């Protein structure tokens, strides 16, 4: 059997990155579709130009002359060719500029977005605020945004420390989160699904572990989720979770984290009121399971070195109870 050429392998491997829940070439939202169209237009035009230039270059090499032609007719022809090339270049670049201008205008934030969510970047996680709407009071969550399908969502992007960038390739373009100002971004999903995003501006040691999940779901499911999230934390029933809650309140945990409905009201760490309902912990680092929660609490600096959560000394029994409590916070 013939060996598969390495070029083919690398092409297949590279193309496999074109689909999935984090790809600008697999768009599922209006802004991302606009951007994909722009990408395709620019790539096609540039490919054609590149092929033409290479063709002309090849022709010039094949039909080379030994001495430069200096007669007036050749000079005139040369002038015409060069002028035509310059004019074509100007037209193409102007065309691409206009195309990208209209794309940018098409993905602008509309005045009447159905939902406004504030996303605040922190080293290295996303703090998310939902404003109160109707009967649902406002609430805070982290690293996971839920949005209703087919509706315009206005994201207000802010930062507390350094510049981050919000990028969910399947739904929208990149937008920076700049300390001291508020940027807007239109987010819209046409299909239900979980879309992964990533901080796209180098922001320090754990920049690569700063992921965000956007969960797009039907409006009814979204309403149910928002109503559940806006409520206080469930009161633990299992004995280990009850013990865990007591430890959580007595140890430094409660000085940085909020669990609504309890005395824990710290504001520097992520809100843990419903941490058990989130898909991942530590900004997409690991899936939320009791085991991963315990591993994270036991030694956050080994799982995500440099993050701002200290290692709080706990006995193994305390650790088991606290992770049971965290898991119970659905």
């Amino acid at each position, binding site marked *: 059997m013939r060996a598969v050429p390495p070029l083919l392998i690398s092409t297949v491997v590279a193309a496999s990155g074109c689909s999935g829940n984090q790809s600008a070439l697999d768009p599922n939202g209006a802004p991302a579709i606009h951007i994909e169209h722009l990408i395709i237009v620019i790539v096609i035009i540039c490919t054609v130009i590149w092929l033409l230039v290479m063709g002309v270059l090849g022709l010039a090499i094949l039909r080379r002359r030994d001495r430069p032609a200096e007669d007036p007719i050749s000079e005139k022809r040369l002038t015409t060719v060069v002028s035509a090339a310059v004019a074509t270049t100007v037209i193409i670049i102007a065309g691409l500029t206009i195309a990208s201008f209209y794309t940018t205008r098409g993905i602008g934030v509309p005045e009447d977005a159905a939902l406004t969510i504030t996303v605040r970047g922190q080293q290295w996680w996303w703090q998310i605020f939902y404003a109160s709407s109707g009967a649902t009071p406002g609430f805070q969550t982290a690293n996971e945004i839920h949005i209703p399908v087919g509706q315009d969502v206005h994201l207000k992007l802010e930062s507390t420390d350094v510049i981050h960038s919000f990028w969910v390739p399947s739904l929208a373009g990149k937008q920076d989160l700049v*300390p*001291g100002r508020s940027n807007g971004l239109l987010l819209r999903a046409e299909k239900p699904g979980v879309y992964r995003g990533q901080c796209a501006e180098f922001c320090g040691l754990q920049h690569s572990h700063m992921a965000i999940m956007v969960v797009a779901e039907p409006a009814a499911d979204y309403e149910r989720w928002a109503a559940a999230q806006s409520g206080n934390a469930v009161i633990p029933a299992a004995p280990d979770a009850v013990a865990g809650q007591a430890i959580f309140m*007595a*140890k*430094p945990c*409660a*000085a*940085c984290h909020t669990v609504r409905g309890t005395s824990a009201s710290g504001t*520097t760490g992520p809100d843990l009121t419903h941490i058990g309902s989130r898909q991942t912990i530590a900004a997409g680092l690991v899936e939320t399971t009791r085991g991963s929660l315990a591993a994270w609490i036991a*030694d956050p*600096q*080994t799982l995500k*070195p*440099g993050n*701002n959560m*200290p*290692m*709080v*000394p706990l006995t193994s029994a305390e650790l088991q109870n606290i992770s049971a409590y965290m898991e119970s916070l659905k």
Partner: protein
Amino acid sequence: MSDRVVETLKPALVAGGVLLFICAGGLLGWLRQPRELRLDPPAAADLDQFRLMHNGISGTPPQSYFALGKPYEADAYNLSQGKRLYSWFGCPACHGDGRGGVGPSFLDGWWLYGPEMVSIVASIRDGRPHGMPAFRDKMTIEQIWQLAGYVQTIGSYTPKVAAPSRNDDKNSRPAENRGPAIIMFDEGPTGAHFDQGPSP
């Protein structure tokens, strides 16, 4: 012949030497102070074991603190972490930007319990009379040492070589790595503090 070779290679040799010197400096810096993101749990637990004089002023840090190289006083990373903790844990509510308010100032050249790390750590960990709360259950001991290092830097009598990160907004007082506070804010050890301290 060999003279000419030396002559031609001279710039390259000088450049190479400078480059080597810079690399060696970088390596030495890294060897001297690799970033320590967390202490080993036994070392962290030992930081709790300092001894305090029974009037609550001054004392002896644990032996392991010297073995670590007194990191919390002279290590830019730990000072920066301390600066972050200073605002995270609400210190400005009473001490302002270091000039005091409800709580005492760190900049007036007057330490109620002395400028030693152990005193400051004890003040933060166990609290002090007249309103200073204990942070024993709110911070880990490592964080308390980081914060104490920063507080000491705010009001140090002598300039430190290491400095915490800069402010994002305008400085409301001289930066932490300037000359000693006593020059800038010398109000003297006056009776203004008679109502504070261990035995008012």
